[in-house]
């Protein structure tokens, strides 16, 4: 039994006790009090039953599969351009940019350089032009490899081009992983 005059814990303290949220000394004090106090033991049992009742509420069945809708609503850009593809694209652009000074100096890839420059100036680019350029490059390389001593040495690359290259890759990465994700605003269905 609790000693006469022992202060009963408040309702809030009993709740915190059950939640395990009282500081160590208070937790012990309440525990000791409850052991000797029938009224508080009963109150604690009622609270415990309430907590159990709340937590025993069974889950409702959703009753349908939302995954097709969720997949449909995913940002379309991401579906087509996963991180790996974006990195591949960045690497391709980087290689092309690195190759331009060499191609210009060798004269082997004039068509390709022209194509790439045209692509850059128009913004969107023409795939056909690029393919034609690549064909020209392949032809040029075959010719160069067949003639000993015709392959030029790599000229030094200006720092500005390296900065440009790094910057372009960073922008591509940021667009692929940030902007496209940011665009995926959820369109909630209008209800009647």
């Amino acid at each position: 039994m609790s000693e006469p005059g022992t202060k009963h814990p408040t309702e809030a303290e009993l709740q915190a006790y059950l939640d395990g949220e009282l500081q160590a000394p208070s937790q012990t004090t309440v525990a000791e009090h409850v052991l000797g106090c029938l009224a508080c033991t009963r109150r604690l049992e009622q609270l415990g039953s309430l907590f159990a009742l709340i937590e025993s509420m069974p889950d409702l069945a959703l009753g349908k599969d939302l995954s097709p809708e969720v997949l449909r609503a995913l940002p379309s850009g991401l579906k087509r351009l996963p991180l790996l593809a974006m990195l591949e694209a960045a690497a391709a652009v980087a290689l092309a940019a690195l190759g331009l000074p060499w191609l210009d100096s060798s004269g082997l890839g004039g068509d390709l350089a022209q194509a790439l420059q045209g692509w850059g100036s128009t913004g969107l680019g023409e795939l056909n032009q690029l393919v034609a350029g690549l064909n020209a490059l392949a032809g040029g390389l075959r010719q160069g490899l067949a003639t000993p001593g015709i392959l030029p040495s790599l000229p030094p690359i200006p720092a500005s081009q390296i900065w440009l290259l790094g910057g372009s890759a960073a922008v591509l990465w940021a667009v692929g992983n940030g902007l496209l994700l940011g665009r995926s605003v959820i369109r909630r269905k209008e209800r009647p």
Partner: protein
Amino acid sequence: MSDASDAELVLRTRSGEVQSFGELVRRYQDSVFNVCYRLAGERREAEDLTQEAFLRAFRRLAAYDESRPFGPWMRRLAANLALNRLQRKTPTELPLEEEQEWSPGHAGEMPEPAAMQRERAAAVRRAIRDLPAHYRAVIELRHYQGMSYAEIAEALTMPLSDVKSHLYRARKQLAQALDPDV
């Protein structure tokens, strides 16, 4: 049904294999829906929130630590989303036909204990739904998400003292609704 672990599915999704995310949705859609339902109190709203929660999770997948369990992370994200929505919305009445879904209307067709269980669950659901939004929020986070008072305070950006008083009053109201003698 894939045998892959949640962490594997997350990694595959990150590398662009979005079908793996579909598997994560199938695994957790029921529990996420229930979080949203308890907070929104309305089925269609809860379905919308569930879908939106998964889309949000997809966008935040890069920030997810795959060494921790996916389920609690997903449910917490859904709870935060639903709470934000609740704070911006005025409460609405539940349509009657939806109410009937879990009322013991077909009690005669089932054994007594099951019917009673169903009736009790319906009563708890109604009692929670009738709480003010900020009381419902603390009940959800404490009793269904297992958060500590400090975590609830952080999640709801409210002082610890408010968490305690909201929980106290919410439980008091629930006790009265579920047992008028309390």
